[in-house]
């Protein structure tokens, strides 16, 4: 309701402004064209997210200085701190980035965004910028109509830049024409009240336009037309810097706790920076004069001096906040806690993860591993072993022989609650993605869906195995007990190996170690078959018991194969080149058979 009222108010003000002043119309149209240009630019850069960006982010954000640099460079190139914030929140939610790295990127983005003021003040106002806009729009639109993803992306970037330039041109023209009718500086205020009032206006303007870049361009063009005083322009710039956090806060609403922490870090940084700028405004003005004189900016070139001011106070913000990054991260983690989620609720399938295909694929990967964790517990309990003992690293025989009582578990209900519900959420998440998947991503999703199905098969086979296990686990017949324990040992061995291979980044070549499990499973199965036949011959097993054990031997083989198959898909390196080499070296069934025959 409140939002609707605000929108109605804005519409009323705009209609009134358009009615009484053609110059106001030109300024408002300039802002609208500029904001449309920002949207187009963001759309263009989105075309380049998909593999490449993930690679760059991963390789350039492992230390705080690197992530800071990434924030500066990416925002300078894309000219949108909002887009960088949204990407960072999305990557953070999907677990592709750590909070400290995310904070570093946001700090850097704040400095990177100041290059916009330099570009507009130094270039946009000094040349006839609209002359550059036309060819950019023509080629931009031409490329947008092409089929190729990257060409389309370039088209959106070009058209975006064209609209930005056109918007700046109209704002500039509007303010210059406005000067002949009305002098806005008469509404200016000096001193501390002026500082606070204009900072407030800067915040409000940025919240409405959701772009500090647009606010800053508006300030610079108004300043160049002498429609606002230099002093008030500085206050507006401070306000714009604080107001820009709204984009990150809105973006974090659909993110998990990590995304919310990052948005909070952004707010803290910009508030502290704004506060420093307000408190030290006199010192800043002197510093700006000194720096401007040093770099050769004319004393009356207030637009460039505003750019210097914008850079200086953001730089001071970074210098002031960087030493406290760890403290900030620790406090945010303490204060913003994730909701305690039940094992049957998805942990990674957030709406913010669907902003980019890479983060969506990563979210599905993490959620599939969550399904694995749940399936691990169900299968372990299904063969009457406490999951914690498998993970603890005790000798497997000891665990199995000591666990000679059936663990009470309703496998069907556990499967419905902890596996099937999550799998349904994954399928829904994939189908609801607001973009079309690329062939490579579709392939990965297909395999992950397949991996989930393998876990389901393993659970269902365990359920069958459990039926007889409940009879034979404490059988007075030593041979029956021994055969079932052998099956349990095999399943526990695989579960433990998979648990250890789960952290692929620290367990290199996990894919190759699965070959040994395949060999073990085949050998065990044959050995058990031979033993069953032998016991049957010697009369140590009845034919009824032997048939049951033979069936369960088959189930054990199937459970093992499903679990190994799952690991073959999921426990691979994120580096596709490394995975390709490992797949080439992994043994094919014939080669495993050759080893068995030796």
């Amino acid at each position, binding site marked *: 309701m409140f939002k609707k009222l605000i929108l109605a108010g804005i519409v009323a003000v705009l209609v009134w402004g358009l009615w009484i002043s053609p110059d106001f119309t030109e300024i408002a149209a300039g802002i609208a064209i500029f904001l449309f240009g920002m949207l187009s630019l963001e759309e263009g850069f989105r075309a380049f997210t998909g593999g490449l960006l993930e690679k760059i982010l991963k390789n350039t954000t492992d230390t705080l200085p690197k992530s800071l640099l990434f924030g500066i460079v990416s925002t300078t190139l894309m000219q949108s701190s909002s887009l960088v914030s949204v990407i960072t929140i999305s990557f953070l939610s999907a677990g592709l980035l750590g909070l400290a790295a995310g904070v570093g990127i946001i700090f850097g983005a704040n400095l990177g965004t100041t290059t916009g003021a330099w570009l507009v003040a130094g270039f946009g106002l000094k040349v006839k910028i609209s002359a550059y806009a036309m060819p950019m729009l023509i080629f931009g639109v031409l490329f947008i109509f092409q089929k190729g993803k990257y060409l389309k992306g370039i088209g959106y970037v070009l058209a975006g830049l064209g609209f930005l330039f056109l918007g700046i041109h109209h704002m500039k023209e509007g303010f210059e024409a406005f000067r002949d009718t009305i002098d806005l500086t008469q509404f200016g205020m000096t001193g501390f009240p002026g500082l606070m009032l204009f900072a407030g206006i800067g915040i409000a303007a940025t919240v409405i336009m959701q772009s500090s870049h647009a606010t800053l361009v508006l300030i610079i063009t108004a300043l160049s037309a002498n429609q606002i005083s230099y002093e008030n322009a500085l206050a507006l710039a401070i306000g714009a810097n604080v107001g820009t956090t709204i984009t990150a806060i809105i973006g974090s609403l659909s993110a998990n706790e990590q995304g919310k922490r990052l948005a909070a870090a952004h707010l803290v940084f910009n508030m502290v920076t704004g506060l420093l700028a307000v408190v030290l405004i006199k010192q800043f003005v002197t510093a700006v004069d000194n720096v401007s004189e040093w770099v050769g900016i004319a004393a009356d070139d207030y637009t460039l001096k505003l750019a210097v001011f914008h850079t200086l106070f953001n730089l001071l913000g970074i210098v002031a906040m960087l030493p406290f990054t760890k403290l900030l991260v620790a406090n945010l983690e303490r204060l913003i806690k994730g909701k305690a989620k039940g094992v049957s609720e998805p942990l990674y399938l957030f709406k913010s993860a669907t902003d980019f295909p890479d983060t969506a694929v990563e979210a599905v990967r993490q959620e599939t591993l969550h399904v694995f964790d749940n399936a691990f517990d169900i299968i372990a309990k299904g063969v009457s072993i406490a999951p914690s003992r498998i993970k603890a690293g005790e000798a497997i025989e000891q665990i199995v022989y000591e666990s000679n009582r059936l663990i009470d578990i309703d496998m069907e209900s556990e499967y419905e609650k902890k596996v099937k519900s999550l799998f349904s959420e994954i399928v829904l998440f994939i189908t609801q993605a607001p973009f079309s998947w690329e062939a490579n991503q579709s392939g990965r999703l297909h395999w992950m869906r397949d991996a989930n199905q393998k876990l389901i098969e393993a659970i269902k086979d365990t359920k069958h195995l459990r039926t007889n296990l409940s009879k034979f686990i404490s059988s007075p017949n030593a041979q029956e007990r021994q055969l079932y324990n052998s099956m349990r040992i095999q399943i526990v061995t695989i579960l433990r190996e998979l648990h250890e291979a789960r952290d692929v980044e620290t367990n290199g070549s996990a894919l*190759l170690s699965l070959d040994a499990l395949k060999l073990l499973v085949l050998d065990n199965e044959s050995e058990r078959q031979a033993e069953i036949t032998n016991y049957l011959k010697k009369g140590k097993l009845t034919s009824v018991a032997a048939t049951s054990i033979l069936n369960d031997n088959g189930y054990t083989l199937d459970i093992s194969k499903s679990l190994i198959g799952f690991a073959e898909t999921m426990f691979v390196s994120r580096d596709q080149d490394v995975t390709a080499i490992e797949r080439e*070296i992994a043994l094919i069934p014939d080669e495993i058979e050759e080893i068995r025959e030796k």
Partner: protein
Amino acid sequence: MRKSIADKVKDLFGSGFKKRVKKAESLKALQKELEHKRSVIHKKMKSTKSASEKKLLDKKLKVLEEQLKKIVKRR
């Protein structure tokens, strides 16, 4: 014949060459990693008392030998 020489030159200096160099480097790194794994398994074999673990380690060694042979063939 001329085309085949041109192809060879292209292959030598083009992306195919770079790919081969990268692959060779990856294979070398993998070989090192597997050899290290083999020595760790040998040590584990001596210390473990669990029959099932011994059995698995034995399979791991057999498999590693074959995988290392495959790497040597490809390098």
